[in-house]
């Protein structure tokens, strides 16, 4: 059993190492994540955000602009999920007199 676990772990480590060695270099302009146009010639959202975030919202932090301006409906859902989680905890923990 121990030998099987060690072999599975080694196999996973080999797969992860091979995948990590294939990653593009940081800042590589030719990698798919950094392209301005995708393979079909359409503009990619990330490049638009990077080039327009500070001009659109006068905010240097690009992550904040994406989180709270371009994708603010998503953040509204996150906030309501936090609140709903709190309400659910409250209903579980609420003490009832028998």
């Amino acid at each position: 059993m121990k030998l099987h676990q060690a072999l599975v772990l080694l196999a996973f480590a080999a797969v992860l190492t091979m995948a990590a060695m294939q990653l593009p270099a940081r800042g590589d302009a030719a990698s798919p994540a950094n392209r301005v146009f995708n393979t079909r010639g359409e503009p990619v959202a990330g490049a638009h955000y990077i080039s327009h975030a500070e001009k659109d919202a006068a905010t240097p932090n690009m992550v904040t602009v994406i989180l709270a301006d371009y994708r603010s409906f998503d953040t509204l859902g996150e906030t309501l999920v936090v609140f709903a989680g709190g309400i659910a905890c409250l209903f579980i923990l609420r003490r009832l007199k028998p």
Partner: protein
Amino acid sequence: MIEHARPFDLAADRCGPSSSPIIRIASRGLAPLIQIIGLYVFFHGHYSPGGGFQGGVLLAASIILLRMGLGFANTQTVMPSGWTVPLGAVGGLIYIGTGFFAVLCGGNFLDYGVFPMPWLDPPHLHSYGILFIEVGVTLTVMSTLVAIFDHLLDG
């Protein structure tokens, strides 16, 4: 017949002030620092990593530290336990209200550029809109975490 218990009468018995003066004084000294750092993280979210979620968690941590150091009953003036859930709802309503205010002003939901403040250009309107909704996020996260702590004590 199931009847609702009086809220938070057990929590005051279970969480009294700490017997160690070191813990009491250290929690009283550390909590304002944590609150200042929380407000800094919240307001500086436009320029550095941070924002509503992280700032709200830091503010909640300071209140929970005070609750554990000084006792449940002594810290009701800092954050009353009955206010936590309404404050969380108010935070969500601030967020949704900002969105519908933009709708009332003729734009899309959460489109801050149409706010009726003609002395500001649209990029700065977006900047202040981000600040408004981060206020709502901070209130919700802070009061939800404190509410969970209070109900864990009382449950």
